[in-house]
């Protein structure tokens, strides 16, 4: 309080001094709004500081520091992606492999859930009775059961696929067994990843070119089609790099063989292990229901006149949806959609229940092996917050593009 008396405005100070009794001085202060503000926050701040000291005091008794993460991990991971990890690497490496696994399942999940959600959202508004009811049933059933139950359900289901010796092959195209689902994939020689990188670069270049050309076309001449030119650019880049890297593409079909010991071995193809497939299916289906509802709500909030006008102009259903409805609905879809993406990423931590080694499961293993629970929690928190921030950032950029008038 003395602190405030020193810093208070001079007008109040003179008034404060002129009052003689201490009671009047106090009542003057209490009636002053600024003083009340200061006083409440001051008390709150002291309380907070005490709590902070208490927590720090308790925390200092625990094991702190990240030193244990540099030593040998000693546990293997059933799934590694991009980076090679084995049990002789450091725990940091294991944690990093876990982060990659989380990003992998979240990224694929986000893409698939968005596609599913948009289709189901459109289906919920379809005049076709059957399609409408399928979509409604999907939302009502999947949304109201716990995600964990669904994850376990998919895992049980995938483990009930036949043994590898009796694997379903669907005409030799893929291998479905309780070891996982193996799908055919186009594979290439060792330059494959470089080529796909160049393709991605080419795609970005052609998209930038397209938007530039559109701007040029509006301002100057109307002689060419920007779509065609940018597509042509992309194809040229793809073909040139294809021959420059001397690429060979082949169709990689998974197959089952028996080796000399009589054990079954499957080879080739794109592998979906039961764990990965279970967590992916469950996340996609579960998040898909929420995206369905978001899409439906956003489209329903558009004035009906938009659809009617599009019909009056003679646009067909596909044109109506892609040119009129979705671009407008996207503006109100994207903010809640971002929330669902964040939820999906956080929900991927439930893979701990089926032993898919995501970042949460790896940190739990480290905690069990080496203790140091509190620093690990801080690490988990920071990782998830970073992932959330990245998703929010990307979605904000998209949102800015979408809400721009005339885009």
């Amino acid at each position, binding site marked *: 309080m003395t602190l405030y008396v020193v810093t208070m405005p001079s007008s109040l100070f003179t008034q404060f001094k002129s009052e003689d009794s201490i009671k009047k001085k106090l009542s003057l202060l209490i009636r002053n709004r600024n003083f009340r503000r200061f006083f409440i926050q001051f008390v709150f701040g002291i309380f907070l500081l005490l709590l902070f000291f208490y927590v720090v005091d308790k925390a200092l008794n*625990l094991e702190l520091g990240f030193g244990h993460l540099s030593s040998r991990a000693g546990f293997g991971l059933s799934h590694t992606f991009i980076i090679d990890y084995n049990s002789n690497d450091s725990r940091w490496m294991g944690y990093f492999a876990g982060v990659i696994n989380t990003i992998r399942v979240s990224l694929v999940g986000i893409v698939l859930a968005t596609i599913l959600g948009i289709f189901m959202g459109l289906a919920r508004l379809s*005049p076709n009775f059957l399609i409408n009811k399928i979509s409604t049933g999907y939302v009502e059933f999947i949304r*109201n*059961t716990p995600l964990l*139950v669904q994850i376990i359900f998919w895992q049980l289901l995938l483990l009930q696929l036949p043994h590898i010796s009796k694997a379903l092959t669907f005409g030799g195209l893929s291998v479905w067994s309780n070891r996982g689902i193996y799908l055919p994939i186009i594979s290439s020689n060792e330059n494959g990843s470089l080529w796909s990188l160049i393709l991605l670069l080419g795609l970005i270049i052609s998209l930038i070119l397209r938007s530039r050309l559109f701007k040029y076309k509006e301002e100057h001449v109307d002689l060419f089609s920007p779509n065609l030119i940018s597509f042509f650019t992309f194809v040229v880049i793809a073909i040139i790099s294809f021959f420059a890297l001397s690429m060979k593409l082949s169709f990689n079909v998974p197959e089952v063989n028996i080796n000399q010991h009589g054990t079954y071995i499957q080879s080739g193809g794109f592998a979906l292990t039961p764990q990965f497939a279970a967590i992916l299916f469950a996340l996609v289906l579960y998040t898909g229901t929420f995206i369905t509802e978001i899409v439906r709500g956003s489209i329903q909030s558009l004035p009906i006149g938009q659809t009617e006008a599009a019909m009056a102009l003679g646009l067909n259903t596909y044109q109506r949806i892609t040119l009129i409805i979705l671009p407008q609905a996207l503006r109100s879809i994207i903010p809640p959609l971002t929330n669902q993406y964040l939820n999906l990423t956080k929900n991927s931590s439930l893979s701990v229940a089926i032993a898919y080694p995501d970042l949460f499961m790896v940190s739990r293993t480290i*905690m069990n092996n080496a203790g140091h*629970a509190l620093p690990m*929690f801080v690490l*988990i928190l920071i990782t*998830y917050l970073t992932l959330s921030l990245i998703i929010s950032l990307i979605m904000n950029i998209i949102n800015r593009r979408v809400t721009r008038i005339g885009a």
Partner: protein
Amino acid sequence: MILLNWIRENFFGTKLDVAMTITGVLFIYFVLSTVISFILNSDWTLIMVNRQLMLTGLMPQEEIWRIWTIFSLTSILMTISISFWFKINIKGSIFYILLLLIPFLIFTTKNTVLYVLLIMFISIVFFYLGHRSKNSKLKNIVSKIIMISWIILLPICFLILNILDGPKMTLWGGFMINLILAAIAIFAGFPLGILLALGRASSYKLIKLVSTVYIEVIRGAPLVAWLLLAWFVLPKFLPNLFGLSDINIVVRAMIVLSLFASAYIAEVIRGGLQSIPKGQEEASFALGINSISTTIFIVLPQAIRIVIPTVVSTFIAIFKDTSLVFILAITDLLRIGRLIPEQQQAFFGKSIESLAVVALLFWVVSLVLSQISRTIEKKLNI
């Protein structure tokens, strides 16, 4: 002819419609045939044998009366509030009754048939009473009584579970623990959430900062992480008073779920606060009402009224999330559903059947709650 027209317009209007209809029919046929053959080919004695285990976990037989008492109190309160507050149409009430009957019938044993019949009879009487008092002079008093009973229901449940040397908390389990955890989370999380929302909307910079950081940090990490924190770290941070430092795992789950729920509820209520026009507050100030009374009597009631449906869906989300307490080794419904096919010889390998029962129970309760939320939404005209 009308029917034919309807079919043609609905299913075969355009080429796209034809394609979608055919795909849809195939899809429905596939799903229905799989589900029906699964239902017909499995052995459902699993439910009959394990129904009590699923409902109450490892609660000893002589303590079951506590659960029945809670059950009957809740169902009586529920029926009277439905009949008192909601407009009853026959279709809706049949829907509710059927949904509530399914778990009831599944879990009724020979010894408890009388109990169930008695509860049903009393519930019907209260249903009628609620319906009658809707238009009588006692309307306001009854409304208040119902409201107060809802608030004190949870403490009473706790009392019933603990008086006369009740069972240890670690013996609580089954579907009961899911319901209790969810109820506690919302009961404790709601006031805390209101405070946090007000804090985040307040002009006091420090309070605003603290509330914002709290909400964002809690929402930043998944619930399983917080539950694991409760398992490893929480006891070390609690003061060594009244045995607080070695509280049992159920209480820890309650604390974490409440704190977790409060952050989400705070965000929901903040949305409600933002949607209240500024004029309400200004008008209240102009009338000479001070800022605390303005918040409590003018702004908050309107904000909460708007967000009730969203709060209910948060509640449903928390209820579904209670299945995550598996990480604390609490024997909740899901855990029991997974243990049965592993430990009972008669049901080895029946994991999908067992899981289906678990899913069905969660689904029924969530569906009833979401129906109630939809009814409230309609009634409040939001």
